[in-house]
């Protein structure tokens, strides 16, 4: 085919030119916007990165990297915990809506899950701090008593329930609707014929899903997890209102000393920051930026590798 006669070029119509031009212009706006954000972040962040111990109240006795390390850890740890809970759940819910629930009910059920996306993060913060934290406190006390052999549950349980696990639960609930919505859309796009072929060969429903739906939706699942992770990493208010933060690196999820996240730390410290302190905070924002980007880049790489298997070529 490729070696056949020279390809026939399509006639260029003015409509085509205008349309593709405006599409390109929109893309370029993103380039410019992001360049502006990046320049601003880097220009404002550099003095913060270079700040030494004692330069500003915020850093105290640490230098910038010592300051940001526990925050970066907390950000990744909270997001990882949240993703760990949300991914299987969202795949389950998406499957439920797309393949298990009675079809008449499915749309309503999907809408109910979407409702969660309608809840703003401030409200999740209110709920997490005032309702969820007291609710899980006895469970944490029980875990500390009976499961302290498990490293994550060692030590004394928090008296308020405002731990990183609570924050991660809130984050998981928050990213659930987005992840579910994407998984569901993708599962629904599975070619009908693939599913029917699998069923006709005598598979059970699960075998059909495993052989037809999941392989088709794998890229969608990863992209859903990515979006969820992106939101979990950058979530500010809910974490700030739920977590009892400290500047430590600790894997214990039920104690009262928890690592803070970068975004929540910015929100908490910004009002009282001045001078170089603001630069330090912006520099931590830059670190968050880099972390998120690294995560996204890996995920994108995975998707691209899998592209040839997905149905949408």
């Amino acid at each position, binding site marked *: 085919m490729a070696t056949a006669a020279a390809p026939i070029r399509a006639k260029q119509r003015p409509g085509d030119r205008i349309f593709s031009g405006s599409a390109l212009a929109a893309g370029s706006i993103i380039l410019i916007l992001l360049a502006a954000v990046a320049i601003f972040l880097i220009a404002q962040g550099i003095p913060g990165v270079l700040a030494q111990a004692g330069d500003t*109240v*915020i850093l*105290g006795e640490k230098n910038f990297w010592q300051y940001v390390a526990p925050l970066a850890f907390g950000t990744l740890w909270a997001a990882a915990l949240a993703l760990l809970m949300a991914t299987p759940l969202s795949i389950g819910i998406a499957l439920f809506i797309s393949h298990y629930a009675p079809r008449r009910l499915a749309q309503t059920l999907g809408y109910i899950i979407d409702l969660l996306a309608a809840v703003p993060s401030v409200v999740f913060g209110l709920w997490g*701090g*005032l309702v969820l*934290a*007291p609710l899980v*406190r006895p469970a944490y006390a029980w875990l500390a008593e009976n499961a302290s052999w498990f490293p994550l549950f060692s030590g*004394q349980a*928090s*008296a*308020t*329930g*405002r731990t990183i696990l609570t924050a991660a639960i809130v984050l998981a609930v928050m990213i659930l609707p987005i992840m579910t919505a994407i998984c569901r859309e993708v599962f629904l796009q599975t070619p009908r014929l693939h599913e029917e072929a699998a069923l006709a060969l005598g598979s059970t429903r699960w075998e059909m899903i495993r052989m037809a739906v999941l392989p088709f939706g794998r890229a969608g699942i990863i992209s859903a997890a990515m979006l969820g992770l992106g939101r979990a990493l950058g979530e500010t208010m809910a974490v*700030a*209102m739920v977590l*009892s*933060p*400290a*500047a*430590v690196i600790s894997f214990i999820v039920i104690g*009262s*000393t928890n690592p*803070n996240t970068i975004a929540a730390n910015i929100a*908490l*410290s*910004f*009002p*009282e*920051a*001045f001078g170089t*302190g603001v630069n330090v905070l912006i520099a931590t924002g830059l670190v968050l930026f880099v972390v998120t980007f690294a995560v996204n880049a890996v995920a994108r790489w995975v998707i691209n590798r899998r592209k040839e298997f997905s149905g949408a070529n």
Partner: protein
Amino acid sequence: MISKRYAGVAGLALVGALALTSCAANETAAEPAASGRTGGESLSGDLVGAGASSQGSAQEAWIAAFQGANPDVTVTYDPSGSGAGREAFLEGGVNFAGSDRAFNDEELAEGGWASCAPDTDIVELPLYISPIAVIFNVEGVDSLNMDAATIAGIFAGTITNWNDPAIAALNEGTTLPDLAITPVHRSDDSGTTENFTEYLGAVAPDVWTYEADGVWPIEGGEAAQGTTGLVDAVSGGNGTIGYADASRAGDLGTVAVKVGEEFVSYSPEAASAIVDASPRAEGRAEGDIAIEIDRTSEEAGVYPIVLVSYLIGCQEYQDAEVGSLVKAYFSYLASEEGQDESASSAGSAPISSDLRTDVEAAIELIK
């Protein structure tokens, strides 16, 4: 199909526009007979302030009363935090700032207030005095006596159980449970923390070896954001103890603090008494009233854990109209009515008449 779609959008826009043009019921045209508290001429214009969140609810009450008397004036106070308020005032983003501490000598020497006339000084007025209560949540206990060393021991983590002999010795007759103490501190940088740690460091220097700081000096432990977050954490936990603006103590147990030989519970009178018993910072310009609270004072009836929050303005504004607005607003805050207003709605301590004389003199400088 397309025309139908556009019709729908247009209909939506129409409904939206109708909704938007409606006006808030409480913002209808001002009543003509506004009481002339400010004298003959009526004031008008916008006044914008920002700063300490501790002043938030007091400012809310002050603004409501001031706008009620001067319907053409709109005052906005953004409780974004002391640091943000000072920064915004320095850059000229706001007309006045609220701050939990006065500008320090270095900042004053640097100067450069953007909204003030060049080479003029600023006024700093201690108009919001609020006691800080040590609050706790232990079932069946409403009040406890403690001295500074005990409080410091609890917050430093050396006293870890409610039935510790150090607490029991000061509270004969109270049954204390065998329950772990969970101290809760503020996770954000705050004036409340700064005043509380300053008190601990000044009165119990052997136990509390940290410097006074707006950021809690000890790593780890239970933390919560903002006064509300802290009060929520203390009331949501069991065996918790924390420190917060006294007006927010609510039903929680409070600590009576040992001063001299007596135990003093917080009260507005005791809080303003300590301000009067404390010296002013020296070497400041006229109109710059910064108070250095004497935490170790042993005078009878003073409550040493107080927060003094300042209102900061220019002595001479670049815009004279703003100057007259600020002057009128500050005069109202310093007046007895103003102080009573914040006392009843925010639980602050009214300033004494001696302090008022000085503050009024400072306000006279504003133009």
